[in-house]
């Protein structure tokens, strides 16, 4: 113990003498912990928001709504369904209220009135003619999130509505999302009448079985429809993709943290090598030295974790409004602010840091503490090339083993790891070939190329970080570009009409000039082989046929479809049920008898969470199935007629040209990849930081060489250029290996991750411009960062050069 303490105090003395070393370690761990904390808090918030979006308040598992505004949901409907045994259904009314505290600013909030106590329901059933005004307001009649109340400036005071009426004093409820005010239904209907604000929906407060859903659909009156999650609005799908992205961010931040910390530790231990060797030579045992090194590690980790957690929590809370608005604008879902528990976060951050450090530093520290001479501390050897071949084989074969989302994501990680092994095994030989090919008559360039080989071995962590960042960057850009191209192509084809009309009036027909052909779109909830699906009508005109992009199609598809014997199914349905062209299926519409169909084609349906079938118009044509959507095709030469006709449409009806819809679709597309772009920046940042730390380390070692070059008559500028050339060659070499890895990873993202996460895929498209841009931007960013340590390199000549060891 005495010897361990002696070693520990010696290491602390070293830290005092060279304070930048522990400062760098503490700073690195602090950044890592701050990042982990921020991502944990955002993840918690998003998960809670996601959960809230999936719970009964916002996006329930089952929702009964009116098909048309002209025939709203009534209290009678509510009573009848509950009396039929669906007591899980609860009435809700959604509105947008402008509220103001006593002398405060007005603020528009989403409101949700909920018949949680059943008082509203019981008013009708028990035949009481009790007016809502006479009902006592229950405790917590009105509630909102603390952040909402704070924004209103309304703690402990009643709220005023725009119509002059007052709401009871709201209570704070941290479970509610920001921007929402919730109240008991009798309270709401003391402010508005049913005519002014009809019921919005009946939602299920508990899970509903498929059998119950089928029964409910049979019992529903014609003017109502039942929707099940994830069929509702697509929020759940978005939340799913958001959760996937957040999981990826969390995993990425963990890897980032590891890279940053291990890199910083390598830096510190490398610069202390001489002292460690001398301690061993003086008789200190390897065990005592290991214990002292880990003790020092624990001290720095403890200090840095606490500071990092505090910094991360503060940053997250400071940026909550921006994060919330991003979440809300992207997914039209509410954002619940997570409450940080500092002790838990600290334990998590410190525990994770220590665990990672123990795992990844155990061997290097043990090796360091066994050194007795400087020769034993020689740099790392190159990985054998055959190891790279094995890693490549594993990376190529592993995707075949993916069977669900988790395994697909694990394979992404495995692929990146195998890529790192390949890089470490093949980059030095690749650079050595480059060095051999460099003409000797250019001695400085030849020196740079030869040095780059050594540099690649000394900066392994940084090279791996850059490889991962660039590969992920390339993969995500290819994936996004492929998806963009596929989506554009698919939407452009599907919008085969000149335009589309959307009406909430529920009409099955619309008046239009003779030269305009309006075709209604019918939708229905059906069962396919006794499992729920959505049916959509599709015309069999030549134009429509050309508009339906398919992955596979039977030779006589349209003939069967037109005869009512064939159906097209989307990819989602095909993957989920294992269906393919030629299979026989039984489709039962809500009131029709079961009909047999042959699957005649499978079509892509990007972003749709539902299983969907296309049926001829005749199969679905009925008033109750009218969706309020019409395709509009103008006769040749009558295009201007559409614009004139669109101006005559009423308030409930909107017309969108095909090009306008295409633009809107692509705008929505771009928004969903905001997080992907953030991931790109995050991975590049860690690569840059790793490289920065590695180059700072290497700079210490190469000072004798730089002095030598100066003594040989090489100017300072040429030396800096030579160093920059080394970094450039390292980055270019890594980029050359990252390009095929990135393409492979993009394929894994599309064919495995996307396939198992969302049940649809799209074609991989490799655009040379996208590849080149990814490589140039990433490499350029890294090289810019590396100018910082480069500018600090001093080429002062000292005849008595001592090796840094």
């Amino acid at each position, binding site marked *: 113990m005495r010897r361990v303490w002696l070693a520990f105090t010696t290491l602390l003395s070293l830290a005092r003498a060279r304070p930048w070393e522990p400062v760098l370690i503490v700073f690195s761990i602090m950044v890592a912990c701050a990042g982990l904390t921020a991502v944990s808090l955002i993840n918690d918030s998003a998960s809670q928001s996601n959960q809230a979006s999936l719970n009964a308040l916002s996006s329930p598992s089952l929702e009964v709504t009116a098909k048309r505004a002209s025939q709203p949901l009534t209290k009678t409907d509510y009573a009848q369904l509950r009396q039929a045994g669906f007591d899980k259904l609860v009435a809700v009314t959604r509105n947008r209220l402008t509220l103001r505290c006593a002398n405060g600013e007005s603020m528009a909030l989403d409101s949700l009135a909920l018949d949680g106590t059943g008082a509203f329901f019981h008013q009708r059933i028990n035949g009481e003619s009790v007016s809502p005004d006479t009902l006592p307001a229950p405790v917590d009649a009105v509630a909102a999130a603390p952040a909402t109340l704070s924004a209103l400036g309304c703690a402990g005071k009643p709220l005023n509505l725009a119509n002059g009426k007052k709401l009871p004093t709201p209570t704070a409820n941290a479970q509610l999302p920001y921007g929402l005010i919730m109240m008991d239904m009798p309270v709401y209907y003391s402010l508005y009448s049913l005519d002014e604000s009809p019921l919005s929906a009946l939602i299920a407060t508990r899970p509903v079985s498929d059998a119950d859903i089928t029964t409910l659909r049979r019992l529903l009156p014609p003017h109502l429809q039942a929707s099940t999650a994830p069929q509702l609005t697509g929020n759940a799908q978005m939340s799913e993709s958001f959760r996937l992205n957040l999981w990826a961010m969390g995993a990425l931040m963990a890897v980032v943290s590891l890279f940053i910390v291990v890199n910083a530790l390598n830096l510190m231990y490398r610069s202390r090598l001489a002292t460690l060797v001398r301690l061993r030579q003086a008789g200190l045992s390897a065990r005592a030295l290991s214990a002292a090194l880990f003790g020092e590690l624990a001290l720095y980790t403890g200090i840095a974790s606490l500071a990092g957690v505090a910094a991360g929590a503060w940053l997250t809370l400071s940026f909550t409004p921006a994060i919330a608005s991003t979440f809300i604008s992207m997914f039209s879902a509410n954002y619940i602010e997570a409450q940080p528990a500092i002790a838990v976060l600290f334990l998590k951050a410190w525990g994770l840091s220590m665990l990672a450090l123990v795992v990844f530093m155990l061997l290097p520290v043990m090796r360091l503490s066994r050194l007795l001479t400087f020769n034993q501390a020689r740099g790392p050897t190159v990985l054998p090339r055959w190891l790279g071949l094995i890693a490549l084989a594993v990376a190529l074969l592993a995707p075949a083993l993916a069977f669900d989302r988790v395994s697909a994501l694990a394979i992404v990680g495995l692929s990146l790891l195998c890529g790192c092994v390949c890089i470490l095994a093949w980059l030095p030989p690749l650079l050595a070939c480059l060095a051999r090919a460099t003409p*000797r008559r250019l001695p400085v360039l030849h*020196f740079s190329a030869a040095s780059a080989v050594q540099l690649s071995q000394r900066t392994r962590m940084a090279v791996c970080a850059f490889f991962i960042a660039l590969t992920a960057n390339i993969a995500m850009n290819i994936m996004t570009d492929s998806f963009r191209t596929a989506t554009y192509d698919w939407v452009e084809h599907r919008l085969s009409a000149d335009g589309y009309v959307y009406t909430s009036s529920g009409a099955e027909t619309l008046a239009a000039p003779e030269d305009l052909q309006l075709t209604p779109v019918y939708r229905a909830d059906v069962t396919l082989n006794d499992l729920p699906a959505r049916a959509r009508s599709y015309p069999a005109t030549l134009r429509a046929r050309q508009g339906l992009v398919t992955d596979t199609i039977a030779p006589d598809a349209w003939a069967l479809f037109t005869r009512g014997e064939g159906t097209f199914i989307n990819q989602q349905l095909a993957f989920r049920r294992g269906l393919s062209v030629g299979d026989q299926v039984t489709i039962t519409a809500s009131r029709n008898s079961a009909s047999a169909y042959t699957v005649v084609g499978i079509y892509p349906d990007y972003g749709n969470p539902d299983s969907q079938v296309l049926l001829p118009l005749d199969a679905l044509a009925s008033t109750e199935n009218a969706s309020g959507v019409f395709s509009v095709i103008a006769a040749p030469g009558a295009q201007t007629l559409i614009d004139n006709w669109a101006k005559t449409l009423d308030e409930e009806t909107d017309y969108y040209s095909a090009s306008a819809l295409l633009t809107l679709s692509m705008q929505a597309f771009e928004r969903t990849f905001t997080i992907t772009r953030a991931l790109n920046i995050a991975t590049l940042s860690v690569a840059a930081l790793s490289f920065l730390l590695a180059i700072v380390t290497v700079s210490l070692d190469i000072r004798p060489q730089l002095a030598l070059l*100066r003594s*040989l*008559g090489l100017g300072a500028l040429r030396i800096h250029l030579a160093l920059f050339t080394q970094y450039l060659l390292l980055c270019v070499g890594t980029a050359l290996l990252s390009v095929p890895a990135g393409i492979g990873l993009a394929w894994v993202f599309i064919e495995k991750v996307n396939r198992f996460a969302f049940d649809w895929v799209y074609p991989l498209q490799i655009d040379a411009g996208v590849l080149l841009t990814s490589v140039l931007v990433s490499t350029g960013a890294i090289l810019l960062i590396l100018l910082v340590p480069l500018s600090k390199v001093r080429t002062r000549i000292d005849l008595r050069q001592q090796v840094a060891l």
Partner: protein
Amino acid sequence: MLKIAHLSKHFPGTAAPQLDGLSLTVPAGQSVSIQGASGCGKSTLLSLIAGFELPDSGDITFNDTSLIFTHTRDADAFRRQQLGVVFQSFNLLDCLSVWDNIAFPARLKGNPDDTYQRDIMHQLDIAHLETAMIGSLSGGEQQRVAIARALAHRPALLLADEPTGNLDEATSERVTTALIDTCRHTGTTLMLVTHASEVADCTDVSYRLHNGQLQSNQSAVPAS
């Protein structure tokens, strides 16, 4: 010819100047050794001659060209064209082979001569190490490679700071002999700093640096 006139250099924080009006004349092709106690200013003198440092006062000329350069590019050009330096710690480029290390200054100068280089390597008994990497060489071999590198571009002046400081006695003798003989063979002016008397005895002239001044070891007569 190397001429040093009234050279002075004082480092801040030290009590006395390292060099105090030192003067020296070295004819072309002569080998000169400088001895002295540790910290007396021997390496400082070499640094000033090589242009690595600037003197406080005085002048240094080589073949009538002043070595006190106002522009670093002129100093760099002098080092490329006319100067060779042998360091105590060898300072070889470990990413290059022995052949490439030796050829590096000549390639920089633009006058690589494979035949001449091989000749020097033969003289220094390292011809068999042409393709070897630096990390595989012993101390003596590395120092001989460093000497070969310093001579391969045919410099007019060679400065060697403790070239045998890290070598054993037998190797030290071999290296010293090889260095001095090669310089004589090529007509290179050699200035060598050493602690070892036996090394100093091999040069044409030997001086001792004391209190910032040079004194000839052969007699009590000052250097200039």
